[in-house]
């Protein structure tokens, strides 16, 4: 779209002339719009009555997109490009169960082998057909990226991929893997010839094709006309706009400047629930957990010191203040939340400054200790968690020095350079219990910037993934939860659900239990 068209569109948008906007968009999309023609279209008759499909869906999210490569995403908001542009052998439905997507069916000749049959006639956005060779290439790319890829830990069990013919792939595993089918939903299929440019001009097989990304302004994808599910996607275009300020996102939704917003601030829930026409989307189960990261290096390599910290987290105080009563503090330390099949009660440390003081002395810090805590300045919730903890830690003799960083700097310092002592972050929920813990506890895992690494834990995690009997698996995960409560690799605070909200215009929108729209974006419609 040329500049003049865009400016005109913006002007139209601000004047609320929706009837001509869609026409304009379609024409502009086909590149048929000359400047001279513009006036004619604007002056033309109202749009046809069929107002079911089409339109631009405007989504406001909390932070800007950092990474377009689906194999290198780390931030939650970076999921949005790939859930539009890419697709994978399986997809996850609303309840996080794997369903066929690029693979139409699969067989399991033995517990360690899957044979996937691929959908025929699937086209990449640059026109080439997706074939078995692309699956092999994509999986091997994730493997070769190692710890740099978030999904590396999800493909840990993968041994090798063989191409049987153009539409059949044989995947061999190192050991039987219960979560494998759900895990590969995140291993997006990429085109080999696009890999060089995937960070700037990604090409995939997903429902939308990449249009443009302007940092700190917007990220736009447009309907892929040759998407393999007929009739999908239903909207013409999705425009993701980063709006850092939570109150601004809420205001945008209420005034109709946005159709959907992510990360609804807890403090405005009461207000939004009382606003007619607005739907709050809450994940069925706790979707994410507020977690305090701990760097496992002196002095925090001392277990007693970590246990002391765990006793200084006042979950009730945090629940009332930071989370505005959303979620629960029950079993706060347990990585498998209540309601999950792998959940079993464990002994969580109670808030007890006196006991913590004693432990601190035993750990060799009778006069207290000073620790640095890095927070994301643009995410007030992480700042508030740290502020409350600073106050409760003080009661146990731990003096916290807070450092506020901008989001990208925080990711760089904490996740890439691993330069921190304490830090507040959020872990996402995956469907399988393995997905809940593996990346945070496995040696070198993507969510393990603290460098937690024990042989016991690695062994247990491997056993848990390899065990196909659910009761036996539950026993293994109980053991893992007990170690987490006792050894304190990190401190889980409480669920911190990512809430979305939409206006009545964005029909049939929903989020899955990971608080992502995922396949919902293919089905969402836009009323006018």
């Amino acid at each position, binding site marked *: 779209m040329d500049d003049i068209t865009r400016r005109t569109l913006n002007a139209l948008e601000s004047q609320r002339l929706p009837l001509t906007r869609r026409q304009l968009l379609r024409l502009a999309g086909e590149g048929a719009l000359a400047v001279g023609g513009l006036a004619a279209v604007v002056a033309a008759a109202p749009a046809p009555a069929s107002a079911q499909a089409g339109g631009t869906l405007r989504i406001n999210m909390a932070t800007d997109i950092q990474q377009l490569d689906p194999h290198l995403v780390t931030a939650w908001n970076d999921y949005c490009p790939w859930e539009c542009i890419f697709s994978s052998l399986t997809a996850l439905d609303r309840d996080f169960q794997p369903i066929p997507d690029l693979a139409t069916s699969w067989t399991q000749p033995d517990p360690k082998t899957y044979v996937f049959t691929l959908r025929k006639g699937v086209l990449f956005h640059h026109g080439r057909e997706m074939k078995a060779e692309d699956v092999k290439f994509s999986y091997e790319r994730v493997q070769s990226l190692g710890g740099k890829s978030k999904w590396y830990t999800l493909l840990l069990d993968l041994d090798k991929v063989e191409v049987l013919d153009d539409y059949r792939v044989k995947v061999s595993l190192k050991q039987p893997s219960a979560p494998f089918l759900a895990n590969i939903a995140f291993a997006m299929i990429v085109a080999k010839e696009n890999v060089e440019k995937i960070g700037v001009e990604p090409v995939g097989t997903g429902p939308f094709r990449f249009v443009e990304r302007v940092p700190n302004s917007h990220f736009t994808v447009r309907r892929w006309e040759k998407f393999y599910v007929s009739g999908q996607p239903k909207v013409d275009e999705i425009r993701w706009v980063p709006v850092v300020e939570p109150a601004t996102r809420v205001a945008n939704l209420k005034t109709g400047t946005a159709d959907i917003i992510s990360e609804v601030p807890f403090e405005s829930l009461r207000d939004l629930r009382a606003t007619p026409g607005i739907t709050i989307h809450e994940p069925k189960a706790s979707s994410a957990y507020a977690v305090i990261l701990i760097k496992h290096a002196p002095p925090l390599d001392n277990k007693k010191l970590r246990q002391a910290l765990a006793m200084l987290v006042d979950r009730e105080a945090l629940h009332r203040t*930071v989370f505005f009563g959303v979620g629960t503090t029950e079993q706060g330390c347990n990585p498998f939340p209540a309601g999950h099949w792998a959940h079993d009660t464990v002994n969580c440390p109670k808030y007890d400054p006196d006991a913590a003081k004693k432990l601190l002395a035993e750990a060799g810090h009778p006069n207290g200790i000073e620790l640095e805590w890095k927070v994301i300045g643009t995410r007030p919730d992480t700042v508030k968690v740290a502020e409350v903890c600073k106050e409760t830690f003080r009661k146990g003799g731990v003096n916290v020095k807070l450092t*506020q960083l901008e989001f990208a700097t925080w990711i760089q310092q904490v996740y890439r350079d691993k330069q921190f002592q304490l830090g507040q972050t959020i872990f996402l929920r995956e469907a399988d219990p393995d997905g809940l813990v593996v990346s945070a506890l496995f040696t070198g895992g993507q969510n393990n910037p603290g460098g937690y690494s024990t042989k016991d834990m690695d062994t247990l995690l491997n056993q848990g993934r390899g065990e196909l009997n659910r009761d036996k698996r539950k026993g293994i995960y109980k053991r893992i939860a007990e170690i987490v409560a006792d050894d304190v690799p990190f401190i889980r605070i409480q669920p911190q659900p990512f809430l979305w909200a939409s206006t009545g215009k964005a029909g049939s929108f929903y989020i899955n239990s990971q608080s992502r729209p995922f396949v919902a974006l293919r089905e969402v419609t836009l009323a006018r």
Partner: protein
Amino acid sequence: MGRPAELAPDAHGRLGRVLRALLRSRTAAFGLGLTLLLALAALFAPLVAPYRPDEIHPIDSLLPPTGRYPLGTDDLGRDILSRIVYGARVSLMVGGIAIGIAAAVGVPLGLLAGYVGGRLDGLVMRVMDALLAFPAILLAIALMAVLGPSLQNAMIAIGIIYVPTFARITRANVLSLREKEFVEAARALGAGSLYVAVLVILPNCLSPLIVQGSLGVANAILVEAALSFLGLGVQPPDPSWGSMLAYGRSLLGQAPWYATFPGLAIFVSVLALNFLGDGLREAFDPRLRAAERAN
């Protein structure tokens, strides 16, 4: 003007006269009183504030102003009055120290440029012009990005922003003063350059600098509030009016007192300092002095 008597002004008499002129103006007296009040509150914060500024009371989160919390509480249940009182410390300290830095660097530079003149003058003033060309807040953000966010660095950054103002004012005054008869008289008596610049010329540029200082503190408080609002100034949980405003804003609908009172604090203190600055300017104004003498 320019009479040899100005060489050694009677410090006592002059201060008294300025103070009298200052108090005669109602707005200036108001500004002075409020500034003093603010300074006292900041100085005796532990005695004035009912609570520690970072003391959380989770049960009392977001309470409206009541007897227990005169200005209400924030989302973590901290007393807003206490945070504003401690915030005054931050604001005045940043304002004072930053302007101190600006004056300590700017005045000697201006004096040097103005007195020596020639190529050195050109060089120094072009650097000052370059600094002045940046919008203040943008320069501060850039400096903070380089120095890293902390209160100390905020003071340095704000100090650097106001260096050119002091340099320019000093230079302008030096340029006109160095040709005056009393300066020539001092030279004729055999005084060296350093003596003339520092002991003869500089004391005579003090009045505009004092005015600029009081106005500068007000501006520095605003810049600090803006930096803290952006998360670049005071680090949490230390209170700053700017950061309180930033966090309070998202709760404006439910807890208007959270953002309102820090905002009022910024407004009132900046207003007071501006009144004071204007009053000082009038008090130093030679035309008014002449009028006084005529009485």
